[in-house]
Every structure is written in structure tokens, then in C-alpha cells.
């Protein structure tokens, strides 16, 4: 698909996603080697988004499997459609009578029925779930296995067969091999340790919060109407919040939401009232909100003191903004 890493970058950028070197290289390698990508990192840094834009950029269908505790094969792979089987048996009752006509013993009847068993356990009555869909698809697909860390360890073990050979075994039908090898993205929020075996089969991609420059690029791309000065201030604010000791740090998606909110509110610059009113878009815990507000007030009083100082004394070097919060 891609011949150089630069092409990956262009293709993803065309889908309005700004990949770091790391991401572009990993996607390129995954594409070349046909290995799954395991993307780990804090919530909301664009792990799921990566799968979506990758699918869009390569013009593949995206099949998504959301993991949760208790997810098992019947939900992930396939399920027999009992209702349909039952309906068919009811409708085909006359045919079954014909089939069993002239049978004298029960054993003979069972044998005859057994010879027709294949009809009922065929792909006609199978309900494909995301994994089987990805394997049997006519067209190449991108398979997104979201939040794998939420699924149980058993399910992870079951995934190994799918991920290494891209084939699944259904006892009644045999082994089904993938026509096109799907491109797989697994995401994890790192709430639990994944097994070594799974990690070994994947290329590992750790996506962290972006740097200020990258985040500014992202905001400019996603919220085009925002005045550049305001975007700059907003990103600085978010970066500073990430330096603080909070229960949950604002993610990139929250930065974008916030930028949209600022745009909707027609804010011209970031003053205290605006921030007070919109901070709940960024921070989702009461404790975090209070902490951020306190830091902001302290920050402001510092600044006014500094301005007072500046008017009297020669200007001092500004101390490191981020470093001040690290201690609390």
C-alpha cells in the first residue's frame, strides 16, 4: 500500500490526523510486515482515532470489536442463530416427515436425520461477529480491537490464534482462513498487564500526550475557526494542567472539545471568567476542578505581584511556569 514512511504521513494527514514519527513508522511497518499494532497510552490521545483514519486512508472497511469484562467467543467470533434454525425446522416439518417416511426404528430415524445435520450447521445459520467478519470479508479490512485490557485473560488467549495466523476454527465447519490479511489495531489503556504472548505478536506503539507544538497543530486542524492567539493560549493552559497532579489529565480529545466550546462562546482571549465557565469541559472530577482553580488564582496573584515588582525594579527572569505546580 505504502512505499515509504513519508507516504503514510501524507495519507494520514489527508484524513486530518497528525501522526508523530513514531506513529507513522509503526503504521508503515505494520503495513509491510502484516503485524498487528498494540497501541497503549492514556485515554483520549487518539488510539481509536488512529485505527479509524488508517482504515479511511487505505480505503478499507473498519470493523470494530469493543472489549468488556465477560466478552467471550460467542460475542466476538460467531454464534448459531437458534431462532432461525428453529423457524426452519418448523417450516420444513413436512419435508422432514417425507425424509423420515418409511423408517421403522428410532435408530434409523436418528441416522437419517444426522446425515442432514450439515444443513442446519452451515454458514446459513451462523451469525458472524466482528472477528469472523474480519476474517471472511471479501474486501481487505481494518480490525479495531478496542480496550483489550478490559477483556478477561481467557479472551486474550483466544485472540492469539486469530492474530498470529489470521484463521479461526469453528468445530462444525472447520478452519476458516482469512482471504485478505486484515490490518489489526489493538488499543489498551494499560489498566492491567497484557500477556507476554500477545505483546510478542504485536508491534508496540506507546502514544503519549502530544508536545505543545503538535497539540497546537491538532487544534488548528480540527477547530479551524479558532483565533491563533487563543489556540496558543488554550494549548498552553492544557499543557500546564497536564503538569499538575490531577486524578485525570485532560486528553487531546478534551482539548479539541474545549477549543470548540471556546469557539462557540466567541471568546476573544482566555480570561479568568471564560476559563471558569468552561473548565468543566477539560476536567471531569470535582477535586481536579478545585485544584485547577486554586492554581489559577495563585498564578494570577503571582503575576500581579510580578507586575508590581516590574514597575519598581528591573525586570527579573520569569521562573519556570510548569515547575511550580509539580510539588502540590
Amino acid at each position, binding site marked *: 500500500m505504502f512505499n515509504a514512511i513519508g507516504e503514510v504521513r501524507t495519507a494520514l494527514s489527508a484524513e486530518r490526523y497528525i501522526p508523530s514519527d513514531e506513529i*507513522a513508522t509503526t503504521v508503515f511497518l505494520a503495513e509491510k*510486515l502484516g503485524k498487528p499494532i498494540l497501541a497503549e497510552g492514556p485515554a483520549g490521545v487518539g488510539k481509536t482515532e488512529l485505527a479509524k483514519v488508517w482504515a479511511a486512508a487505505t480505503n478499507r472497511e473498519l470493523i470494530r470489536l469493543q472489549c468488556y469484562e*465477560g466478552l467471550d467467543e460467542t460475542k466476538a467470533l460467531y454464534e448459531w442463530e437458534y431462532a432461525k434454525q428453529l423457524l426452519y425446522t418448523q417450516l420444513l416439518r413436512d419435508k422432514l416427515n417425507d425424509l423420515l417416511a418409511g423408517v421403522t426404528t428410532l435408530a434409523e430415524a436418528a441416522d437419517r436425520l444426522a446425515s442432514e445435520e450439515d444443513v442446519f450447521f452451515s454458514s446459513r445459520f451462523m451469525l458472524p461477529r466482528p472477528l469472523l467478519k474480519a476474517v471472511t470479508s471479501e474486501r481487505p479490512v481494518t480490525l479495531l480491537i478496542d480496550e483489550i485490557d478490559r477483556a478477561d485473560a481467557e479472551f486474550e488467549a483466544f485472540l492469539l490464534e486469530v492474530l498470529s495466523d489470521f484463521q479461526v476454527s469453528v468445530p462444525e465447519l472447520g478452519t476458516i482462513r482469512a482471504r485478505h490479511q486484515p490490518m489489526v489495531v489493538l488499543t489498551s489503556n494499560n489498566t492491567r498487564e497484557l500477556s507476554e504472548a500477545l505483546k510478542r505478536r504485536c508491534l508496540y506503539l506507546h502514544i503519549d500526550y502530544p508536545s505543545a507544538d503538535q497539540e497546537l497543530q491538532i487544534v488548528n486542524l480540527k477547530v479551524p475557526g479558532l483565533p491563533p492567539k487563543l489556540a496558543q493560549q488554550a494549548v498552553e493552559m492544557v499543557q500546564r494542567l497536564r503538569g499538575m497532579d490531577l486524578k485525570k489529565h485532560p486528553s487531546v480529545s478534551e482539548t479539541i472539545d474545549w477549543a470548540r466550546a471556546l469557539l462557540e462562546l466567541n471568546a476573544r482571549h482566555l480570561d479568568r471568567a471564560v476559563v471558569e465557565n468552561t473548565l468543566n469541559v477539560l476536567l471531569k472530577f470535582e477535586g481536579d476542578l478545585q485544584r485547577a482553580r486554586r492554581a489559577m488564582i495563585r498564578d494570577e496573584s503571582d503575576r500581579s505581584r510580578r507586575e508590581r515588582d516590574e514597575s519598581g525594579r528591573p525586570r527579573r527572569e520569569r521562573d519556570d511556569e510548569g515547575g511550580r505546580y509539580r510539588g502540590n
Partner: protein
Amino acid sequence: MDQRVVDFISALRARGVRISLAESIDAMRCVEVAGIADKSFFRSALRASLVKEPRDLPTFDEMFPRYFGVEMPPPLQQPGGGMSPEDREKLAQMLEQMLASMTPEQLRRLFEAMMTGQGMSNSQMRQFLNEHTSAMQMTTGFQPWATRRAMRELQFDRLEQLLQELLDRLREAGVSEEALQQMAEAARENREALAQQIGQEVGNGLLQHDAEERRRRPAEDLQDRAFDELAHQDVDDMRTVINRLAAQLRTRIALRQKRASKGILDAKSTIRANLRYAGVPLDVRHRRKHLKPRITVICDVSGSMRAVTGFMLMLVYALQDQISRTRPFVYYRTIADVQADFQQLRPEEAIRVVPERVKGGPWQTSLGACLATFTRDHLDAIDRRTTVIFLGDGDDHLSPPNPRDFELIKRRSHRVVWFNPEPPYRWGREDNHMHIYGPLCDAVHHVSNLRQLVAAVDGLFG
């Protein structure tokens, strides 16, 4: 290049990064595909295929420049390249004479490398240092210091002297001053490169020792270390161990609950669910059992018990999603309800402040009185579905044993469990009243280390 990547992988392994054979093969394929022209792509390719844990990323970032960075010593050059053929002939002759009579052996090899420009590969250098210096046997110490020591043992500073000697001889033989200067300069550059290489190898040796040392005592061993033997830095490690154990415990509990969720048949729900199958009961519904326990935990926060209490509370709060309600209490001379602290603060912070909620000092534990206060003020924390956990050594320095109030608690609760970090032979000696409370409990667990604590907590989710 392949050799360099292999070296890099073994260095990462020595630092404790787990890399399987399959992964190193992947790394080679990745490098092949990504190419080595662009360093940042090359780096990302290695990183994606080799490092699978966020905690190993700093190690990778630290080691990468050592192997593929600017720190590579410059290649040696051949001194005397600009000389005329007969001068070079003389140089070779003189050099041979000098080398033939030179002692000790290691100095001879270094001088030869310096003057001929034929250096040693890293593994050769490592072997060379192993044979001739004690720097590679050192298990601790700073790299500059160890390097200086290795240099001294090799008599590295004599190289300059030898060079001068050679220059003098060549000068006598009539080689032009200009050619000599050029040669000396090249030789000195070679010497610097050798010094750099030695420094690097000594540093790698130290790192390797360090990694082996670390492997010998893995973090998991902390599970078996007694609580009172834990040093301060261990407590930080313990926190990570606790988080991991809590995750394990959670999966185990969740699985058990999933399997146990098949309670008795729910006839109504089954009929309703199977209407669409013409009443054939294909989809059998069961009534779910509610297995999530309610926990009231009453912890001793006297000096000796503080560490265990901290771990216990941390574990209980890490498992909040498996517990339907938690009521924490702490006691010393008095008893206090500390639920508010845990609601306002994060567990680690709350654990730090809760000991201040109660009065007491050394030898002032007053369990009997605290039980009386509890039954008077806090019995609402216990109902028939509550499991009450006492975490304490059972010491009581101020009041007589109070089995009456303990019985009251037991009657109202579902179960009473006691976790005691003291060894059983001390139970009932001196001020210890464990022999009175113990038999009244539904279960008593001796928890002297993390493994036992986790096993005991696991037992709560039967």
C-alpha cells in the same frame, strides 16, 4: 549493522528488558523495511518491535544513543599516511623494534593499536579489559572512576612517553619534522579514540553487573518479605506490586463471580425469554446471586501496625469495584470513622492522614474500650450482609478484654474475620487478647507478608 543491533538487544536484555527471540527477528525485519537512512525512523522501528512495556521505554531511550548515537568513538586512522614510502618503511621497522622489546604485554597491544590504526572490536576490547584490568570485576562505582582505574592498570599514560621515544628514533633516522608532526597528531587522535572505547566498555560492564544484580532480587520477592522488614524505598515498590496484585485479584474475582452467577432457575424470566422460540426453553435464565460483599474494616493504627494497615486499606480501595460498600474505621486509644477521608482524598493520601484522627501513643492501645465505643456509636456500619474485618495484633494495653461487645458485632454481621500480622505463638501472651477474640471470629488469618494478605483478602470473595 546487524551485529550492532544484536549487541544492542543483548544490552537491553542485560538491563532487564524482556525480549524474546521472535521479537529480535521482528526487529531485524523492521530495520530491513524501515531502512537505516533516517535515524528517527530507524529508532522508531526498533522501539516498536523491541519494547513492549511503557516502563522499559526510558531504558531504551538511554541505551539507544550509546549504540547508535554520536557517542561512537571515531574509527582509528593509520598514522604516517602522508609519509614517503621509505619513511614509512623506517617507521614500520622502528615500530617493530620497539614492540619486540616492550613490556608489559597489554601496553604493547595498545601501542600497536595506536600506531598502526588497527583497533579492537568492542567484544575484543571487553575481553582485553577483562584479562588485564580489575575494572570489569567491579560491581559498583562510577564509570569515570572505574575508567581511570582501568587506565592506570593499563599504564595508559606511558603511551605518550613511548610515542616521544618513537619520534626521537625516527628523527635520528632522518624523517622530516613535518611528516613526524602529522604522524604524532594522528597517533594522539587514535589514543583518544581508544580511551573513549575503554570508557564505554567499562561503563557497559558496570551496567551489566547492575542488571544482573537487579535480576537476582526481583520485585516480586517483596511479596514474601515481612511487613516490618520493609525499608522506605521498598514501600514504593510495594505500591506497584499492590496495584498489580489488585488487578490479578480483580480478574480472579470477576471470573469466579461470572461462573457463580448461575444461581437458581428464574422461571418467569425463562418463559419470557423463550416465547420467541415457541416456548422451547433454549435460553435458560438464572437468578443472579449478589456476591459483592459489604465490608467494614476496623484497623489498628498503632506504630507497629501502620504499615500493614496502609497496605490493607490500599488493597481494599484498589478493589472498590468488587465491593458494594466499604466502611473504614481506625483505632488506637480511641476509635474513629474515617470514611469521610477516603471520600475526599485519594487512598494513598487518606492512608497518610487517618492515623491523626485517633488519640494514642506508644503502649496506649485500648481495644476493649474502642469496641465499646463502636457498639455504642457505629453499629449502623454493620448489617447482616456485612463482613467485618479486624486488622490488628490484638494487643490491649489499657483496658480488659471485651468479648461482650465483640459478640454483639458478630451477631449483627454476616461474618467476622481477623487479620493478624503477629506470629501465632504471641497470641494471648502478656497484653495480647487474641486468644479471647480469635475463637469468636469466623476466620483468623495470620498475615505477615503481602502474599498472605492477598490470600486472606481473596478469601473474602468466596
